[in-house]
């Protein structure tokens, strides 16, 4: 079995996987990082979004072996100790979640947007979240949360 070296949430990890192991399977099943969710079979829902070398990707549509040598950040890697990350805090503050299933992917996708655009308009947020589906909220508060979170991040995370 291939042995993979990569950085996950700032820690160097060595993981044994199969070639066919998806990045999300490695995160959830091999490393126990179950904050990253799987919501579909068709690469459409965005529940699985993580950052790979700072860029948001669908971890259900990437092989673990494709992440060899990369730095992966999951929802578990955002908070600094007990305090929430500004984007998480904004989702809490603005009620950007109901059941919470879509939330990890939403937050990771939003962090990528905020890194590119520290003050996104409502339209820009809605366009960017095209690949993140939510069955509960109707998106309104998610959009507000992302705008506030991006401003709170001040263009850096």
């Amino acid at each position, binding site marked *: 079995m291939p042995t993979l070296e990569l950085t996950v949430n700032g820690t160097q990890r060595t993981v044994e996987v199969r070639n066919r192991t998806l990045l999300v399977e490695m995160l959830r099943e091999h490393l126990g990082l179950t904050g990253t969710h799987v919501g579909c079979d*068709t690469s459409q829902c965005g529940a699985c979004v993580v950052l790979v070398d700072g860029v948001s990707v669908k971890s259900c549509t990437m*092989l673990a072996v494709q992440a060899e040598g990369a730095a992966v950040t999951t929802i578990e890697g955002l908070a600094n100790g007990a305090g929430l990350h500004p984007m998480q805090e904004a989702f809490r503050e603005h009620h950007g979640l109901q059941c919470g299933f879509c939330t990890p992917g939403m937050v990771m996708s939003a962090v990528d947007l905020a890194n590119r655009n520290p003050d996104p308009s409502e339209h820009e947020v809605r366009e960017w979240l*095209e690949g993140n589906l939510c069955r509960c909220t109707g998106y309104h508060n998610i959009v507000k949360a992302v705008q506030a979170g991006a401003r709170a991040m001040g263009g850096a995370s």
Partner: protein
Amino acid sequence: MEDFQYHAPGSVDAAVSLLRDAEDGKVVAGGMSLLPLMKLGLAAPGGLVSLGKVSGLDGIADRGSEIEVGALCTHAQVAAAEIVRERIPALAAMAEGIGDAQVRNRGTIGGSVAHNDPAADYPAACLALGATIATDRREIAADDFFLGMFFTALEEDEVITAVRFPVPTRAGWAKFPNPASKYAVAGVMAADGPAGVRVAVTGASGDGVFRVAEMEAALASSFEPASVAGVSVSAEAMLSDDAAGPEYRAHLVTVMAKRAVEEA
């Protein structure tokens, strides 16, 4: 998903020879078309040769009369590149409209062109602009490259290295996306450039991307929306799915052609 051999060579030559040696080998670039198929069991290659570690395939260069886009350039890179936005804004707009942000962060031009999905956007841009597809062994004109749904002129072990787009005088892109998948129900690029006046349509036909000669002739005499507004395409060869039946799709082709010319 069945397991498979996996290789991540550092050069195009090594990738080609690994493909040759592999049993039922396939290239993987961004994986945004291939991995969904493998997850559904619709593809089961024996060996995957990743281009992820091959360097030199992810640049975008201004070659004067042409813009050269490396095969590994992601849709996000093409959409954001200053030279593309300045010199072929229709191409940047097309890349910006593919799927969603995460698909654009991984999916590549080489993969899109090689896959030739009948609803993919790049094939229409390549055909309308008269692009050239460069591989490890030859150069193929877009006209000779797209041979039908999921079918191209590529050999089994051939690797795309770049796509070169002649800079047009004007070009416009319009797409009616499927609301769920974002793939084109009908997408049209209309261009007036070195390759002449061309109208290429994706998403609509079961045979993949195609040109509309009657629209091209009308635009050649007068490049304005009204020229294509009265030209309809036959519903006969149109795809039919949940999003649109053949008549509606044929209608959309004309509407999108008009908008593409407006955008140009």
